[in-house]
């Protein structure tokens, strides 16, 4: 299978690079440099806190934007531009194509994040002078952010299999926001004690991907540690949900008549 998924993935990565997607790193660098220099003005004593908050939030936001905007075009673009025709003439199954595109975007996001992490580390050293032990948990927080990227990419790509980029973006964003607020929604349901509302909110809670699971920025910024159980639980959750989306997407895409 690597003979089919692999080339598609690498080519997807290559497309992103040639589309100059990685230039967002320049923006990120400017942001971190500016922050590192100015943070001392805000207040002494919380420079590391601010750099970590800003850095992780920026990594998260930049990556999510990329995941959504590139993700919704992953399949759609290939169909519209007809580049898919000659590709599907090769011995590759449609689901292999999907997995390849997914892997390619994930690779792009991964590379992007690595560079950003280096930038964050540099900024931290600049304001703090050295690393402390608790900084290792920053890497865990970044891992969680990567899991988030993977989920959002899978979501966006799923919609890309059958709807236009505009609609796919709306759907994906909508589900993402719902997923971030999932526990609030759940809480509201529990609070009202109205059985109908309760049923709806509960269903929603388990249906929608709970993105708040992956948010460890607050903890990590204050030097807290992340329990290992959370790490593998989140990994499993993400893997299951992504599998779900890929299977559903493959089903939809495999039966689709290309125009």
């Amino acid at each position, binding site marked *: 299978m690597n*003979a089919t998924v692999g080339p598609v993935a690498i080519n997807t990565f290559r497309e992103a690079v040639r589309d100059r997607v990685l230039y967002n790193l320049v923006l990120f660098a400017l942001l971190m440099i500016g922050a590192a220099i100015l943070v001392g003005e805000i207040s002494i004593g919380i420079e590391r806190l601010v750099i970590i908050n800003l850095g992780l939030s920026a990594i998260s936001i930049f990556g999510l934007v990329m995941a959504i905007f590139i993700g919704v075009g992953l399949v759609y673009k290939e169909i519209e531009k*007809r*580049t*898919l*025709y*000659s590709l599907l*003439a*090769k*011995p590759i199954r449609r689901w292999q194509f999907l997995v390849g595109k997914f892997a390619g975007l994930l690779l792009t996001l991964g590379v992007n994040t690595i560079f950003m992490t280096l930038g964050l580390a540099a900024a931290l050293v600049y304001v703090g002078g050295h690393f402390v032990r608790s900084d290792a948990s920053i890497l865990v927080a970044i891992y969680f952010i990567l899991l988030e990227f993977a989920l959002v990419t899978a979501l966006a790509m799923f919609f890309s299999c059958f709807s236009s980029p505009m609609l796919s973006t709306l759907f994906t964003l909508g589900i993402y926001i719902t997923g971030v607020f999932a526990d609030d929604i759940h809480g509201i349901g529990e609070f009202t004690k109205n059985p109908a509302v309760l049923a709806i909110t509960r269903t929603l809670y388990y249906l929608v991907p709970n993105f708040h699971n992956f948010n460890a920025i607050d903890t990590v910024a204050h030097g807290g540690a992340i329990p290992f159980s959370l790490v593998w639980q989140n990994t499993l959750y993400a893997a299951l949900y992504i599998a779900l989306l890929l299977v559903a997407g493959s089903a939809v895409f495999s039966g689709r*008549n290309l125009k």
Partner: protein
Amino acid sequence: MSTPAIEILGLTKDFPVGFWRKRMRRSLDNLTFQVEEGEVFGFLGPNGAGKTTTMKLLMGLIFPTSGTARVRGRSIDDVQMHREIGYLPEQPYFYDYLTARELLDYYARFSNYSKAERRERVGRFLERVGLAAAGNVQLRKFSKGMLQRAGIAQAILHDPAVVILDEPMSGLDPVGRREVRDIILDLKKQGRTVFFSTHILSDAEMLCDRVAVLAGGKLQGVGAPGEIVSMKAHAMEILFEAREGRALPAALAKNATRIGGRCRVEVPEEALYGALEQLRNCEARILSVSPVHPTLEDYFFRLVGSPATSRGLEEISR
């Protein structure tokens, strides 16, 4: 009898049309024919006849409403069958951020070649389609003709037994078309089967062992180009110069066409001597008399009729 290269068995395709997608338009109706191994087979028909639809069905890009097809004995559902096929889509689009070399290399990865083999093949086929100089240019800078050639290269790079080309001559200048013709003949010499669609009928006449004619989603005829057109009776063509001041006989004048100083008229074979007599009587100067070879084009137009009906739309309401 060996397995046919391509067997098309009752292929039918309906498309939903209309805003609510409730009505169906039948774009292919119970198509059945075969392409034998080793032959060059032309697929002819006006725009909208269903040629591209047929090819997309063969390649698994769209799915039949009913019917099936096989390539070298394997069903079109079998994706491994694609190892033996090369396909050039109509108006090929490729990843424009890749260079020609990268594109071919990418597609070559789906066959099991070693790195060295791949490199060698990519170089060889770039050369073959005349793109060796442009190998490292990004496809977005390619002209239509160059894209067409790149498309052909990727279709034959893995030495497939069956090559399916949708309008391979489109967008090419006469030099390019000659090159494609040469490639097709070369493929035939290698024993491969070539199935291509075109509406340049002279190409079909020149290259094909057999042709199928499609119009309105229905198969109109299959056979060697010579068989298909042998139904028309021969006519004779007379080229002459009319004498100044002398009028032509009415019947002749009606059917004659004038180009510069010359006139041309076609008469049925049996009426030839009568016409010559008439021309001599009005002192026209005969330039030449030659038989008119019926062409595929005549057959085509006669068969297909006026442009309006040649669209061949047949709606089946639900």
